[in-house]
C-alpha cells in the first residue's frame, strides 16, 4: 500500500484524550469527532489534516481505548501516522478502522512531503529513505480491506 502526504508534526506521548476529548464521545455522528480532533492539543490542527501524514513522537495514542480517536484521525483525511512507537490499543484500533500506522523515528518539517509503502516497508522524508517494520500479514489484510468490519464482511 503506497501513499504520500504533507507532514503535520506533533510531539511525543499524545494521549487519546488529546486526540478527541471525552466531552465529544457520546455520539455516533463522526463529523463531531472530525470537527474537534486534536482540539486540546492545537485548535488549528483539524483544518490542516486532510491529505496529511501525521509525524509524531513516541507512544502516540496512549491512554484511553476510545476508538473514536483513530476514527477521527482517519475521517479528517489523514493518510497515515508515523511515530517511533504507538500505544498498543491505539495500534490495534487504527488498523481495525483502516488508518495506516508506520513505526519510524522520522525527523519532521511541517508541510514537507512524506511518502511510504506499507507492503514494501519504507518511508521517505526530506530526500531520505527509512526502512520500516512490516505489519503482520493479518494486519496488512485488515488494512487492505479498509478495516476489520470489511475484513469480516469479505471473510464470511
Amino acid at each position: 500500500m503506497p501513499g504520500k502526504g504533507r507532514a503535520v508534526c506533533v510531539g511525543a506521548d499524545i494521549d487519546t484524550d488529546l486526540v478527541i476529548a471525552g466531552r465529544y464521545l457520546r455520539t455516533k455522528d463522526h463529523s463531531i469527532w472530525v470537527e474537534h480532533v486534536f482540539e486540546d492539543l492545537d485548535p488549528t490542527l483539524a483544518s490542516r489534516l486532510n491529505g496529511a501524514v501525521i509525524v509524531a513522537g513516541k507512544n502516540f495514542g496512549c491512554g484511553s481505548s476510545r476508538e473514536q480517536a483513530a476514527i477521527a484521525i482517519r475521517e479528517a483525511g489523514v493518510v497515515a501516522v508515523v511515530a517511533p512507537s504507538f500505544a498498543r490499543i491505539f495500534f490495534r484500533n487504527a488498523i481495525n478502522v483502516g488508518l495506516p500506522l508506520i513505526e519510524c523515528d522520522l525527523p519532521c518539517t511541517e508541510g514537507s512531503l512524506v511518502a511510504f509503502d506499507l507492503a514494501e516497508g519504507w518511508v521517505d522524508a526530506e530526500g531520505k529513505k527509512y526502512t520500516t517494520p512490516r505489519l503482520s500479514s493479518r494486519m496488512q489484510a485488515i488494512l487492505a480491506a479498509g478495516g476489520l468490519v470489511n475484513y469480516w464482511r469479505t471473510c464470511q
Partner: protein
Amino acid sequence: MGTLSERILHGTAGEYVDRVVDRAYVHDGTGVLTLEAWKSMGERRLKDAAHLHVLFDHIVPANNSTTATLQHELREFARSSFLHFSDIGSGICHQIMSEGIVLPGDVVVGADSHSCTLGAFGAFATGVGATDMAAIWMTGETWFRVPESIGMHLSGTFTGATEAKDLALTYVSRLGMDGASYQALEFIGEGTPALPMDDRLTLCNLAVETGAKAGMFYADDVTVQYLATAGHEVKPQEPEPCRYIRELDFDLSDIVPVIAVPPRVDKVKPVHDLAGLPLDQVFVGTCTNGRYTDLARFARIVKGRNVAVRTIVVPASRAVLQEAIRTGVLDDLVEAGCTLGTPGCGPCLGAHMGVLGEGEVCLSTANRNFKNRMGVGGEIYLSSVATAAASALEGEITEPEVA
C-alpha cells in the same frame, strides 16, 4: 515453564496466537461503537453470549437525551440478546468483573484500557477497542501477541501512611508512560502475599499507564480466599522459572506518599514537595481507588471533621456502597460534608458530573491526569486515598499523617 502470560496464552513471548476469550466486556461508551461495528460485520451472530458483559458505568445516569438514546439502544440489545447486563448504579465494569466473575487463568478482554485491573486474579486481562470487541462478539476469540514480561519484585511492607497507590504511581514514574509498551508487568516476590486483593487491583490498574498490556499477580491464598467468599473454588498458581525481559525491585518500606503532577502520570513527586498547593475539588473513587477499603480509609481520616473543599466520593460499585452503608462509613462521609455520586466512573473522564472549571485544581484518586480530561482548563493531581483525605480537610495538598 514460562511467564504467567505465556502460560495463560499458551505461547512464547513475541508469538502471535489466536485465543478463545473467557470473559469479554464493554461499557456504555465503548459498547455503542461495538454494537455499530458488530451490526456492520454482516452475519449478526453472537458467539456464546453467556461470556459477554455489558456494564453501564461511564455516564450514569445519562446526562442528556443523546446519551440516553445511545444507552437505550445498547440496553435493549443487551437484554434481548441475553448478554450479562449491569445497568446504571451497578458500578464500574472492572470492579463488577472483580466481584467474583473473573477467575485465575482466564483470558479477559475489556473494551476499556483499564481492563488490565483484572490481572490481579492471575488472569490475562487486557483492553481493546470497539471493533476488536465486535469481532470477539462474533467469533468468541481474538489474536494476541504474547507479551514479554517485566518482573516487578516486591519486598517489605508499607509503612506509615503509604498505600498501594503510592507504589503504583512510583512504578509508573520509574518505567515512564511507555516503559512497558507491549509488555506485561508481573508482580512477584516476598512482598506480594501480604497484599490484599484491593491493593493488587490498584497495582494492576495502573499498568496501562506504563504502556503495559497487562499487570498480573499469581493467584495465591489471598486470591483463593477472596474468590471463596464469592462462591468459587480455585487453585493457586505456582510461579515457574521463566525469563523476564527486565526486572525491577521495589522495597515497599521505601515507598513514600507521592502525587502525579499534571499532565503526566509518570511525573511523580513526594507529597511533601507539593504541600500547600490550594485545591478546588477532591475526588475519591474510580477503578483505581473506589473500593470499600478506600472509602473506609477516607472516612476514618475525615470522621468527625469537615472537609474544607468540595469533595466528591463515588463508590466503585453497588456492593461497595452497600458495605459502606452497613458499616456506617457512608454516614461518616456525609457528616464530614462529602458529596456522593452514583456508583460508576464519576468525574474521572470529564463527561458529566464533577467537571472542573477553567483554572480549577482537583486532587483525585483516579489514574489519569491528562490535559483537560476532567474539564477544559482544569488540572488534575493524582494521589492515594490517605493523601486525598488529609488534603480535603485542609483544602490544600497535605501530607497524610501516620495512622
